[in-house]
């Protein structure tokens, strides 16, 4: 028991120390950062945060990111719901192959798709719009959503479907009125994971945007300037990108393993 506490304690310290250091840096002035190593901010300042919240070129990065992430989450779930139902309830020609093909797209390296996506979205005039990034992220988020939702839906007994049909429900009415509420927690978990995987991805988001839809992750590279690195500002921007995940994590804590394992735990 004691050994377990020590292992866990050390691991948690290892997890939190780099995050603490980022928070620490974000609350310091740049003079303090470069002059000496201090374990906590001796001269506490919120200037870095104030700058981000007042400078449009900074906060628009967050808004752009939130736009395509929200769009992607809605798209992924809306498309995945009927498909996940089909996979969980029926057999049809090519179902296994299709299911595998979806998985292979979840695993596809974004680096392979960066250049063709750039060409594709430039050609159809979507380059530098949140929609382009939202659609691009569907590459891995739609398969993810199908797999997770299928996992949840398979947990709902099929007798419920049959009873509803006997009661005279049509398929769309059954799906919306009865089935969707039953898998509501699954939809919530899926939404969280779509949100998250879209939020943490940078390569495609950066490749598909230049000015108008620039995500926060790309804005952060701006802190390198002629005057050297603005470490405090960079750290503050980093802390603010951790917050959305940290705020909702409490609600999904029991499903984290399930979501990462594509609903297979």
């Amino acid at each position, binding site marked *: 028991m004691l*050994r*377990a506490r020590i292992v*866990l304690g050390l*691991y948690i310290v290892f*997890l*939190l120390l*780099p*995050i603490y*250091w*980022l928070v620490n*840096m974000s609350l310091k002035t740049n003079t303090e*950062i*470069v002059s000496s190593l201090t374990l906590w901010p001796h001269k506490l300042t919120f200037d870095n945060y104030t700058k981000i919240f007042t400078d449009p070129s900074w906060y628009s990065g967050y808004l752009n990111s939130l736009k395509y992430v929200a769009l992607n989450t809605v798209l992924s779930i809306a498309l995945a719901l*009927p*498909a996940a139902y*089909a996979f969980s*309830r*029926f*057999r*049809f020609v090519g179902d296994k192959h*299709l299911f595998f*093909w*979806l998985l*292979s*797209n979840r*695993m*596809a*390296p*974004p*680096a*392979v*798709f*960066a*250049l*063709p*996506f750039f060409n*594709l979205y430039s050609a159809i005039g979507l380059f530098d719009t949140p929609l382009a990034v939202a*659609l*691009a992220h569907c*590459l891995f988020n*739609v398969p993810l959503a*199908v797999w997770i939702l299928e996992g949840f839906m398979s947990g709902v007994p099929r007798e419920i479907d049959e009873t509803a049909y006997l009661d005279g429900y049509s398929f769309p009415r059954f799906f919306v009125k009865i089935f969707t509420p039953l898998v509501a927690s699954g939809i919530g978990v899926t939404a969280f994971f779509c949100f998250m995987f879209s*939020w943490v*991805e*940078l*390569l495609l988001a950066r*490749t598909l945007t230049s000015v108008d839809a620039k995500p926060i992750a790309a804005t*952060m590279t701006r802190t390198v300037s002629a005057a050297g690195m603005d470490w405090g500002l*960079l750290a503050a921007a*980093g802390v603010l990108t*951790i917050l959305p*995940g940290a705020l909702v*994590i*409490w609600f999904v*804590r029991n499903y984290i*393993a399930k979501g*990462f*394992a594509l609903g*297979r*735990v």
Partner: protein
Amino acid sequence: MDKPINQGAWLLVLPVLLIVAFSAIVPLMTVVNYSVQDTFGNNQFFWNGIGWYQELLDPTSDLGGRFFDALWRNLLFSFLILAIEVPLGIAVALSMPRDGWRVAATLVVLALPLLIPWNVVGTIWQIFAREDIGLLGWVVNRLGIPYNYTADPLSAWVTIVTMDVWHWTSLVALLCYAGLRSIPDAFYQAARIDGASQWAIFRNIQLPKMHRVLLIAVLLRFMDSFMIYTEPFVVTGGGPGNSTTFVSIDLVKLALGQFDLGKAAALSIVYNLIILAVCWVFYTVMTRMDAQRN
């Protein structure tokens, strides 16, 4: 577990099929198209057949040497992080508190690194490991160990492996914990009555229960480390020299940096085929295990 056969289900799958085809097949066709052509600029392309592929798979050529170097480097990286993350993840999962509010609190703390944008993970370690302003780099240098991840390849590797362990060990731990939770208390009580040692409990009760989740963890970690891009790109940019240039980083350099479309496209296809093969193993193992469970 017999599902009814219903070809009408295709209609329900159709929207997903269309969007994924649009995002996957159309771009991949472009890549295939590029991979068999050469260009002198001005948008003039001419047929090159399998030339790029021959060059890519020939380790003595420039392109091939570069590809195989990045590939071995990437495989070494995947092997290292698996060798550390799996045992550490199991140890952490076994150390989880049994019940009460501490379980919830620990779960939240463990999951924290998983939700941080990948470039910010890079930024965190870029700062944390610096010798002048980072706690880790500063302390290690004060201990008299020379450590500088921008100049010394070994330091760069240590930084990137540590970063990945920091980033993803929690995933292994959370999956293992999910497996452990499915063990009924009666098993432990029986083991206690039999006077089983801690090791015997682990070997005969806990490990078999974690078998399935461990496989998922290993394969997920392998896939994600095999296509790692953002985190090492932010920290080292692939350097010093080429010492931390993994396949994805090399590919982006080739495609978006040098605009060497034919070479980049051939590399993309080979890369994708490797991923597809591993993915197929993953799927086969997983469906077989699902079948066993039912």
